[in-house]
């Protein structure tokens, strides 16, 4: 898992990833009205299906959050996609490595 995530990000440092993770956790729980506090999200739990329990509409909303906040466009046909939605950590690492703002 960690290895996969590393493949996705060329340059992001640990602290840059942590900052994205914190911000994403806050935005996701806020936007989706989730039943968990941002700090209670298990950063290694799957985002889709069990784990955070999100469905495809939620994933679309998360894509919008990431596009607006970081200028990163998610694509379903990219081979990386099943890796980046594996967990909040993987998603944060992906975004931190690609962000344009």
């Amino acid at each position: 898992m960690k290895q996969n995530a590393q493949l996705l990000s060329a340059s992001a440092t640990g602290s840059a990833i942590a900052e994205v993770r914190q911000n994403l956790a806050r935005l996701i729980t806020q936007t989706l009205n989730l039943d968990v506090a941002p700090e209670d999200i298990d950063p290694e739990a799957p985002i889709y299906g069990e784990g955070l329990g999100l469905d495809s509409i939620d994933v679309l909303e998360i894509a919008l959050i990431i596009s607006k906040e970081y200028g990163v466009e998610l694509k379903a046909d990219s081979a990386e996609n099943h890796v980046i939605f594996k967990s909040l950590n993987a998603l944060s690492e992906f975004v931190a490595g690609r962000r344009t703002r």
Partner: protein
Amino acid sequence: MDCLPILAHESPDSVVAYRAGQPVCARRFLADVVHLCAALPDSRHVLNVCKDRYLFAVGFAATILADKVSFLPPNHLPEIVRHLKQLAPDTVCLTDHEAGIDLPLIPWPRAPAPLPDHWEVPLVPRGRRVACVFTSGSTGTPQPHYKTWGRLVDCVRIEADRIGLSDGIKRVLVATVPPQHMYGLESSVLVALQSGQALCAERPFFPADIATLLGDLPLPRVLVSTPIHLAALLATRLQMPEIERVLSATAALAAPLARDIELRLGARVLEIYGSTETGQIASRCTTQNVEWQLWAGVQLSKQGGRTWAQGGHVEVPTPLGDLVEMTTRDRFRLGGRIDDLVNIAGKRNSLPFLNHQLLALAGVTDGVFFVHDTLHEARTSATRLGALVVAPSLTASDILRHLRERIDPVFLPRPLLLVDRVPRNATGKVPRAALQSLLVRDGPPSLHIARR
């Protein structure tokens, strides 16, 4: 016998589909259909879960030619598959991916279909039952509704006229919706096959996927989508390729959103109204009309506080799931939703059906779903459901895990509140005020669930 052709493409070289950007001609399509038809097993019922829209179309057409019925349930969860097996023990599954469905699988023919020299479009009797869709109804059992070939074709031929696909111009239709629901079946598969247009095999999801896919296809292009996907598309700063028209259905599209789409994409926005039981029955040009234009042959009438549709391509008189205000004989406005019925992201369900599913879980002694929109700060576009559950031996995550096997994820309760008692009144209903006070008293739902 009164028959209709399986497709309207007039020449063997006309394009029926694009797969990975490459055109597939009508000759190839029919060869694939006939080839698969010969390979289908004896059973009468097929669950076609193919994700590739071209393979779905081949499977759907082959199933029709073999005089079998395509099952089109609202989802493919274990509970629904069990129900299909009960209804028709001979059901087999046609799939193009690892679907994890507990049914015998139909293997796709290994060898490519040989291309025939002659060109002959198969004809299908109008009265043949070709598909069966399901609604949740008010009990725990999904209700089957059979569709006949003639009425399906009548419906999409009217659609082609109403949305401007009957002018002889060859377009390509790209859809963000799956082909297995009525809207997707009609507007991304059948309307293309019956008006000589091309369908696109891929189903884009994220806005960037839509942009890339459209950009690789020839002009003119039609985007078949939903308000949720369209709102996401508008919210990005992506440069969108040229689109001629945009079709939307499953929920009403807000007029400002429709205007923005027309301004930004330069596309004409057309909206379609229909339901699983009736198929599509009306359309409107959202930026020009609030009112919906009822399609030829269909009539609406009021009975017992509900509006019923019948006639034309509607199989049997059917009550509509929305409040309808008729302005003239063939025009109407849509009001709010009817109590007990919910539409989340275009998926319809009834609260009684969901309650049945909840109460069927071992360990749940009482429980009720509720619509949660009044509690929202309108931050998300989608309405959500909540649930109150009495289940002394279970945790909220146990219950969610079991519900996940029975109901589509968009209907999973958020929040799910474990309570000692459901505050019902004398008639067994949960009054709005009691619900509000429970939610307010317990503060953010997360605290409540965390305590358990």
